[in-house]
């Protein structure tokens, strides 16, 4: 008897066939899609996770008829919209001052912006909460000392505070996104306008802004999405003032109602996810395919516009931004951490730090956070690397599926993600034992970090020409040997940089542990939040200063390591290593992985 066996499609390398992609798709479905599916199912069930329940629309009825939900919707729109407008205007002004004028201090701005992007939102939440404390915040006490009045200059627990912090953070990464296009504007367009008789200002408004319109639109949508997803800042500054946005309301449904109202939280989450996905879709449709042809990228002539006395105003603007974004928050955080209790002026001591390090719980939390950040960061980077590599090499239609799956974490805010993960781990019998363990927290943090991780390895993978891999295969290297011997060493500098950034993001993340951590294994951000809400503000500040100190040490180690690696790789500037430096300057937007350019890391 003759059996006709249909031969399997042979593969020329890892991930080239649909079969090779299968494990990654399974993992991605489990990590990225399952929590959302479970969230949707949960929203239609009438009991909390893990309990017997019936299908019902109760939660939707409750949530969608509650006028408070629409107040929340309005607040979210106001915060995202207002923050976006302010951030974009400030970013445009700064990008203009830096790239086109002779304003003093302009060279400081880009470095400062990278720092602002890298600092976790939690940093701004706590430091501005302290700075703008109406009774004892530094801004107000100094104001009173100076003027002799007993009024309040600025209350951070207000719309003004929320918008200010949203502006500071949003301006930084909008700036980094806009600087590239700003620098790359084809000067001949400007010269043509000037030759035609348009003045400098008119050229700026009539030509440059129009040419930059696609980039600006992208930044605006991105800002809006990030505004909708923000959690830490509204939680610290909005909640005390009674301003609830989507993310904090979802959290409140679980933390403030007894029993926790998982149904309403899920129903509201779905609305938020739907909104964000709509925006992401709009962004993809409107901008994803378009090439900024008007920004040619070839002309980098640096003719600086002498703006005369205006430059001092520009410098003042830069100083004001730096004060608000870096200097004042840092100063307040450090000073506050040295006070026995926040507001106890005059006496400074290391008492808070001693107390922290004498408390085994804090030390455990620090250790847990360090391990979760490093291990979770490594897992996120490895997964991102495999996904990016697979999408770049796969020849089957399934790579689109994988590409789409990696979009999900981007469109799902942290609180919603942790809610979905909670549903997943509590509802699925085999996984229930893990609930509350650090593994679940880590899973959530890894998923939350995936968008940043993918975007940090992507440019490096894109820089490796196919010939480098093929040469290795032809030389006799099996696929895995090729991957570890050629691909991995070549992308190592950007892999390490990405790992570091992802570790920062993980170690500053509050939205995931706030719902998934148990009391036994809190991470540092959760502990900071608890100390802060218990009124132990200076202790919370001290704990956060410790985290910043650890980051600083990490940064120094990273810097040394990558300098070493880069020197080893080649004598002259090497394209791969160059691309490895996480350069947010030339990044339009998150786009499908197959053609994306890098996005500033830590933008969320």
């Amino acid at each position: 008897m003759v059996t006709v066996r249909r031969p399997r499609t042979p593969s020329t390398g890892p991930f080239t066939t649909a079969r090779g992609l299968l494990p990654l798709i399974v993992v991605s479905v489990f990590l990225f899609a399952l929590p959302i599916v479970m969230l949707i199912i949960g929203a239609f069930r009438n009991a909390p996770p893990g309990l017997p329940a019936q299908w019902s629309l109760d939660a939707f009825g409750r949530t969608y008829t509650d006028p408070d939900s629409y107040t929340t919707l309005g607040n979210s729109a106001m915060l995202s919209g207002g923050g976006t407008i302010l951030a974009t205007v400030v970013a445009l002004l700064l990008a203009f001052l830096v790239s086109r004028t002779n304003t003093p201090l302009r060279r400081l701005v880009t470095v400062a912006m990278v720092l602002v992007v890298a600092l976790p939102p939690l940093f701004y939440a706590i430091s501005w909460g302290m700075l703008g404390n109406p009774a004892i915040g530094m801004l107000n006490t100094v104001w009173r000392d100076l003027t002799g009045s007993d009024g309040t200059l600025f209350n951070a627990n207000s719309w003004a505070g929320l918008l200010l912090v949203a502006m500071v953070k949003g301006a930084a990464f909008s700036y980094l996104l806009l600087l590239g296009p700003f620098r790359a504007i084809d000067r001949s367009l400007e010269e043509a306008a000037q030759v035609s008789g348009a003045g400098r200002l008119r050229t700026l408004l009539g030509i440059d802004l129009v040419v930059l319109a696609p980039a600006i639109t992208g930044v605006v949508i991105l800002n809006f999405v990030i505004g909708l997803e923000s959690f830490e800042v509204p939680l610290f500054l909005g909640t005390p003032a009674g301003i609830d946005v989507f993310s904090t309301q979802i959290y409140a449904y679980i933390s403030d109602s007894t029993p926790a109202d998982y149904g309403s939280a899920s129903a509201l989450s779905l609305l938020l996810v739907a909104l964000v996905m709509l925006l992401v879709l709009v962004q993809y449709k409107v901008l994803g395919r378009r090439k900024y042809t008007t920004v040619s990228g070839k002309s980098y002539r640096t003719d600086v516009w002498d703006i005369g006395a205006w430059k001092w105003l520009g410098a003042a603007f830069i100083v004001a931004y730096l004060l608000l974004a870096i200097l004042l928050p840092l100063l307040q955080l450090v000073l506050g951490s040295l006070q026995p209790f926040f507001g106890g002026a005059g006496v400074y001591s290391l008492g808070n730090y001693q107390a922290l390090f004498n408390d085994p719980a804090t030390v455990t939390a620090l250790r847990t956070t360090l391990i979760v950040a490093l291990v979770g960061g490594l897992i996120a980077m490895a997964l991102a690397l495999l996904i990016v590599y697979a999408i770049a090499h796969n020849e089957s239609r399934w790579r689109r599926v994988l590409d789409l799956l990696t979009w999900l974490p981007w469109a799902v805010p942290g609180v919603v993600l942790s809610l979905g993960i909670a549903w997943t781990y509590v509802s699925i019998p085999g996984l229930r034992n893990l609930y509350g363990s650090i593994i679940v927290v880590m899973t959530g943090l890894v998923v939350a970090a995936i968008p940043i991780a993918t975007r940090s390895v992507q440019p490096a993978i894109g820089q490796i020409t196919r010939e480098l891999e093929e040469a290795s295969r032809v030389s006799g290297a099996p696929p895995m040997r090729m991957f570890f011997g050629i691909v991995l060493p070549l992308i190592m500098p950007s892999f390490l940089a990405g790992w570091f950034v992802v570790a920062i993001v993980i170690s500053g993340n509050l939205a995931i542990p706030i719902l998934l951590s148990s009391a036994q294994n809190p991470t540092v951000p959760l502990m900071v939040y608890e100390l802060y809400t218990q009124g132990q503000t200076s202790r919370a500040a001290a704990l956060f200063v410790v985290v910043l100190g650890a980051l600083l040490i990490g940064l120094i180690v990273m810097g040394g390591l990558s300098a070493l690696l880069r020197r080893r790789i080649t004598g002259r500037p090497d394209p791969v290593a160059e691309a490895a430096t996480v350069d947010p300057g030339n990044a339009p937007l998150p786009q499908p992985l197959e053609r994306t350019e890098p996005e500033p890391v830590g933008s969320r």
Partner: protein
Amino acid sequence: MSGVKIDGLVKEFGGSTAVEHLDLDIVPGEFVTLLGPSGCGKTTTLRCLAGLEVPTRGEISIADRVVYSATSGTFVPPDKRDIGMVFQSYGLWPHMTVAGNVGYPLKLAKVAKPQAREQVVDMLDRVGLAERIDQMATSLSGGQQQRVALARAMVNRPTLMLFDEPLSNLDAKLRLSMRAQIRELHDQLGTTSVYVTHDQEEAIALADRVVVMNMGRIEQVGSPRELYRRPASAFVADFMGFQNILQGTVGDVLAGGYVVGVTGTNTAVRVAGAAPGPAGTPAAVAFRASHVCVNAERSPDASTLTGRIKASTYLGSCMRVLVDVGGALVRAQVDEGELHRFGPDDLSPGHEVTLSVPAAQVVGLPGDGPAAAGVTAPRLPAAVAG
């Protein structure tokens, strides 16, 4: 014993066919070039040989070992094919030294370190880069990098060497010396080589046998001289640098030759050899500009053509003239040494000249009919210089 045997190779990408039923036998030690314009399937064929693409149908064997067979489902991955390959843009690993790059295949083949080092030094000696052994590979110049790539591909003495347009990134002078080096190494080491290029001069200079490809098919296989002197189709003639390809029909059949009447004109060209068919059969003729003899005097004769100069371009070594012969455009060339035979204005546009083409230098081709007009249509006068 065979070097490479390709049998009915088909490669489809999505809906389009890159290689369409290709058969080719290569004897061991032979140097074969695949020549054709971009998109003709030559590189795809090479990548199928390397195992970097999985063919759609057919069978490939290297040194009598089947490396791909659609019917039996055999596919030997590239790392198990015992081949060496030189890429267009070198493909050197920037994180390794020259020695690291060249020694990589030996490391993978688990050759003992001292012996591997010896082989690396020997190979680098052959390409003249022994003193660069410990430099980072990408710190070298383009030509040096390609020599390192060549050394890496050959260091483990593969049974088959593949070259994917290895010289196209180098400047003209380097190309010549590298070309000689590649052929020399091929002869010294006795490998079988398949070399892809779009440059006919390179193909002719290097190969024992040239395979001209067009739209996924083989147009003609032959020795460089055969192809250069007797192209079998208008496409090959055009690719081999025949400046004049005229479509027509067979006219009178004479003893030892025949006449082709050029379509749309009353011009006739004499061809030596047997006619492709009786009078009226579609036929074409091809001849080189350098074989056209130009005369300023009018001496009407059955064997000459009379025409009016449309354009002329002085190129230093020669004068190129484009002549309108009764509606057909003929490109002719007058060497610098011959220019003294002409008066100052004799070769200016508008002047009448007589042309003669020795029948032995005219290649008779099968007529393609009107469909092939794209290939054989007279070029614009601007192209006369080329």
